Structure formats: structure tokens, C-alpha cells
């Protein structure tokens, strides 16, 4: 304790008033070196030699080394994931049971969330995958690999059934949804770009060695563990309150893994349908989806002349590379603010402020770094390396965002005729809410019952 205090006083004092500072340092050093040990020595209480224990023959015990938890828990998790994914796919596609999906999502919330504390989760696993691809010293556990791949594979076959009832983050938002409000379509479309940015940014950060952003801002892991930093709890609490009125705000407007699931779901083999048979266009399901994932039938004919549409598409296609290039340039300019998300860069910047005298107070982190006796230049060099690689990563991130925005504009501008009410394959999470609004569903259920 004394040494800690003295060093703290020294550094500050030296900066303020050199003469007094040195004096106080010498006094404290004297106190430390001279007074304390001699005093203790005089009392003979601080042993100076290795004890021999001649009288009692005491043998110093070994330091205990409890081993890592066995992998069994991970394999149980994997088994649970497969079972839950299969059950969710069966319940939404085959059994078409909202009650079953609801029950399963509560179970998933309890098991993957509160029991397993929300870790490993597929949402964060994308970061491990990227780290394994970019950092050869990193070992990605088998469980994490499969947590990444399995939901995507299931989505390629059955749609986003993972989101419906397996993901604890989705389940958390789903169970508190009491009064869904319709989000204006332009707001939803604009906010829908955020997950792409979040995915791109966090993967860029991982590739540049700047840490795991997704885990740091996991909305509910603080609730699962019943402990988290204050900003994390505020963020999670906000999302939770918001999700009472807006259907799954994290899933739709932030979840980075949702981007991959969205892509896979668009290409899925099978997908839930609102009606089990022929759509009768009764419009009853129109407002049933709290996530605005039902596509309405289009008018018979496109009122717009064909030539105009083609011209717009051509403009968009030309704009696409321009957007990508512009995004890439913009992204590369973002290296400095992006690098501030890295703790190492934060430490280096703080150190720089202290070294140049712009900040008088030492932070606990810089103080600990100084105590390691590592040269401060090394820290600067490390931070600059991260910033440099983020400059390159920024190009990729910006280019990706340009493509995403361009692609979305093209998709919005292209006419697709639809006769029936169908789920938007990308956005639909197969929650089965719309089923019970369908009169055809009721009719088939009734017929089945009467036959049996």
C-alpha cells in the first residue's frame, strides 16, 4: 500500500512543482526503505531465511490447480442447440403451433440465457470465426464453430427458425412484446441498414485486433449474468423497454448475425407460409405481424411504364460501384474514431495526454502500465499499428456498406408482382403469429378434427 501511494504522489508532484516533488519523493523513499524494514527487523517478525520447521516437520503444501471445466457442458450445449433448432423448425413449419414456439422460446431463454449465461451464442461467434481466419495463434473451439454454422445451415433449409425460438436474445424481446407499434416503412428500411454496419464494423475490429465489439454490447447478457457494467445495463434496459412496443428492435435493427440469417433465409429450401393452402386474400393477416414482415399483394399491373423502370435500374447499377468507392474512401477516413473502440488505443491516447502534460491525473490503467516498466513507445507503436490496419479495414468496411446501400436501393426500385400475402423471407423470423389470423388455417384444422 505504501509503495503504491508514494509512487502516485511522486508522479503527480514531479509534474506540478519539481523541487518540492523530488524532496517529497526522497522523504517517502526514505520512509519506505529505512523505517519500515528496520523496524520490522528489529522486532524479528519478518523472517529473513527460508523456514526449516525442525520442530513440527511441517511440509509446505502444493498450490492447488483446479482444472478447466470439462468440455462436457459445451457438448451438452451443442446437443441442446440441435434439438432446439429441430424442434423450432418442426413447430413452425410442420405443426404450425404458435403455442409450441412460445414455449420453446421460453425454454431457450431459460437454458441458453439464464442457465448458460448467454455464452457461447451464435451472434458473437462470427467474431471468433473471423479471428480464427486472421490470427493463426488463436484456437477456435469446436463448440463455437458449430454454434456459428448450425443455425445458418438450418436457416438454409427452413428459414429463420433459429430466431423464432432458439436465440435467447430474440426470446427475451419476444416475451416482453405487449403492444407492438407499426414502424413506418421508411424508418424500418433505413434502420435495417444498421445491422450491416454493425456486422462490418465488429468484424473489421476483430480482424485488426481491436477486440470483440458484439460481446461488449450484448444487450441482455448483463441480465443473464445478473452483473454488468453500467453502460451495458442501460443499453440492455433501453432495448428491453423498447421491445415492449417495437417488435424485436435488436433483431431487426442491430443484430449482426441476423444479416447472415437474413441472406440464408432468402435462399432457404422451405419457409413458413402464412396460410397452409391457397390464400383467399381476406386481408385478415395484414396487420398480424409485429415485425412488419408480411408482404402485401401488388396491383395486377405495374402502373409505371417499363422503360422508366429499366432506366432507373440502369442508373442504380451505375451508381453501385460509385457508392462502393465512395463508401470505401469514407471508411478509410474513419480509422481514428474506429480505433478508439480498442482499449489498447484508448490506453495509448490517455498515456499521450499524460505525457504531454495535458492531463494531470493518472488513470488506474496508465499507472498500471507505467508499473510494468515497459517502454511507453511500445504502447504507442502498438496503438499506431492497430490504427494503421483499421485504415485498411475501413476501406473494406466502407466498400461493403456502399454495396449494401446500393443493393437495397436496387431491391426497392425493382417491380415484383405478388398475388398473395406472403412472408418476407429475409425479415420473417417464423414466429407463427400470423397463422391464427388465417381463416383457411381454421378451416383445415376444423376439417381435420371432424374427420378424426
Amino acid at each position, binding site marked *: 500500500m505504501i*509503495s503504491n501511494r508514494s509512487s502516485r504522489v511522486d508522479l503527480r508532484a514531479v509534474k506540478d512543482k519539481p523541487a518540492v516533488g523530488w524532496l517529497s519523493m526522497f522523504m517517502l523513499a526514505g520512509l519506505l526503505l529505512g523505517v519500515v524494514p528496520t523496524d520490522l527487523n528489529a522486532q524479528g517478525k519478518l523472517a529473513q531465511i*527460508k523456514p526449516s*520447521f525442525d*520442530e513440527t516437520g511441517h511440509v509446505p503444501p502444493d498450490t492447488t490447480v483446479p482444472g478447466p471445466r470439462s468440455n462436457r457442458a459445451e457438448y451438452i450445449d451443442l446437443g441442446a442447440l440441435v434439438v432446439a433448432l429441430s424442434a423450432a423448425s418442426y413447430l413452425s413449419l410442420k405443426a404450425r403451433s404458435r403455442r409450441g414456439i412460445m414455449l420453446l422460446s421460453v425454454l431457450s431463454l431459460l437454458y441458453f440465457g439464464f442457465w448458460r449465461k448467454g455464452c457461447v451464442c451464435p451472434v458473437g461467434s462470427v467474431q471468433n470465426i473471423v479471428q*480464427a*481466419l486472421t490470427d493463426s495463434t488463436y*484456437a477456435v473451439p469446436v463448440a463455437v464453430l458449430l454454434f456459428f454454422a448450425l443455425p445458418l*445451415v438450418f436457416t438454409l433449409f427452413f428459414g429463420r427458425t433459429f430466431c423464432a425460438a432458439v436465440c435467447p436474445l430474440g426470446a427475451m424481446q419476444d416475451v416482453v412484446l405487449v403492444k407492438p407499434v407499426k414502424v413506418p416503412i421508411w424508418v424500418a428500411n433505413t434502420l435495417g441498414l444498421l445491422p450491416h454496419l454493425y456486422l462490418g464494423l465488429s468484424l473489421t475490429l476483430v480482424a485488426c485486433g481491436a477486440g470483440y465489439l458484439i460481446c461488449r454490447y450484448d444487450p441482455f447478457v448483463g441480465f443473464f449474468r445478473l452483473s454488468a457494467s453500467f453502460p451495458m445495463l442501460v443499453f440492455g434496459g433501453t432495448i428491453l423497454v423498447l421491445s415492449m412496443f417495437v417488435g424485436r428492435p435488436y433483431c431487426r435493427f442491430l443484430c449482426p448475425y441476423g444479416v447472415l440469417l437474413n441472406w440464408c433465409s432468402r435462399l432457404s429450401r422451405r419457409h413458413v407460409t402464412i396460410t397452409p393452402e391457397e390464400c383467399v386474400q381476406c386481408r385478415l393477416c395484414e396487420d398480424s405481424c409485429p415485425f412488419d414482415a408480411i408482404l402485401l399483394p401488388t396491383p395486377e399491373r405495374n402502373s409505371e411504364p417499363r422503360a422508366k423502370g429499366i432506366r432507373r435500374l440502369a442508373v442504380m447499377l451505375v451508381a453501385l460501384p460509385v457508392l462502393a468507392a465512395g463508401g470505401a474512401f469514407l471508411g478509410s477516413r474513419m480509422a481514428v474514431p474506429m480505433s478508439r473502440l480498442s482499449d489498447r488505443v484508448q490506453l495509448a491516447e490517455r498515456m499521450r495526454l499524460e505525457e504531454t502534460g495535458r492531463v494531470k491525473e493518472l488513470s488506474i490503467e496508465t499507472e498500471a502500465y507505467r508499473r510494468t516498466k515497459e517502454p511507453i513507445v511500445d504502447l504507442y507503436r502498438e496503438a499506431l499499428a492497430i490504427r494503421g490496419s483499421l485504415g485498411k479495414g475501413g476501406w473494406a468496411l466502407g466498400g461493403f456498406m456502399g454495396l449494401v446501400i446500393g443493393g437495397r436501393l436496387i431491391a426497392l426500385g425493382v417491380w415484383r408482382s405478388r398475388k398473395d400475402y406472403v412472408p418476407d423471407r429475409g425479415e420473417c423470423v417464423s414466429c407463427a403469429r400470423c397463422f391464427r389470423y388465417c381463416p383457411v388455417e381454421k378451416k383445415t384444422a376444423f376439417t381435420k378434427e371432424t374427420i378424426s
Partner: protein
Amino acid sequence: MNEEGKQTERREFLRRCLGGAAGAAVAGVTAAAASRSKREDYVWQIDPYKCTQCGLCATECVLNPSAVKCVHAYALCWYCDLCGGYHQSYTRDTDTAAEHQLCPTSAISRTYIENPFYKYDIDEEKCIGCGVCVKGCGAFGNGSMFLQVRHDRCTNCNECAIARACPSSAFVRVPASDPYILKKPKQHKADSDQ
């Protein structure tokens, strides 16, 4: 077959192809990640020779209390009567009175062995990993107390929250087969020689 039916079929075919490609991509990325990473599982550990006992281990861990605990290398300990890791630095009384103890949670117990030697044990149930005793032991004693990640508690997070906060880069990944970096008497000798 009418025009519309053909179009749907074409679309369906295209989607199947793209779906297959996406499946292949997922499998490929997973396989690449698996093959490019090391075989053995790794866990987090503190290098006690780099640790500066800044105290962040106690507050940054996602577990509460932290999975970092003070461990004691008895072979290094001098069994002092007045222990730098056990007693407040200002005290001259070597009793077990609470006001003389350094540990904020009273997790260290002191047992009499023989004159003038006392054994110090750490109760990991109480220890919060603040490192106050480690600092004291290093300042006045041998440094036989040091911080370690206890793997019976650690959940081996994706990105260890303490590792991210650790200013002295003392957190390292070590093979799961050899998950501790313990201080050994031999190394202590090398230290004191320097």
C-alpha cells in the same frame, strides 16, 4: 406451361443454386476457420511476472465475484509472523484482529506452525481477486502470493473482459492442458539474483 409458371420455376431454380452456394460458403468458412486455428483448446491465464496488481481483475470479470483469485505458492513463502500480504502496512501488531488485516474480505487465514512461523491460507470462496495482498506480499515479502485465473470458476469467455481491461498485458492464452502459470522456487531464485 404459361409464362408466369416458367418465371416462377426459373426463380425457384436460381434460388436453389444460390442456396447451395451459400451452404457451401458456410461450410467452407467453418472448415477454413477450423483448419487455420490451433488444434488444442486455449484458456485465459495471468502471467504473475507481468501482473501489476492494478485491481481491475476484481471489477472487470463478468463473474461476480471474479474468477481471478489469489493463490499461494507455499514453497516460496517465508511463513513470516508479520506478513506483508496479511497485515496492514502500518501495523506492528501481528495478531488476527480485523483492523490489522489487509484483505478487504478477510479471505486469508493465519495458522501458527511453530515459532516464529505462521502459515497463510486463502479461502477462495471469499477472495475477490483484488490483488491487495499480492501487492503487499511483493512489497515486503517474497511474492509467494499471486493472482491466477481459477479454471473451476472461469467461463472462458470469447474475449475475456479482464484481458481487455488489463493495462499490463498480463493476460495470456495458455493451453488447456497446462492452464496455470505458477511461481516456482527456482524462478524466485533467478529473480533475487537479478
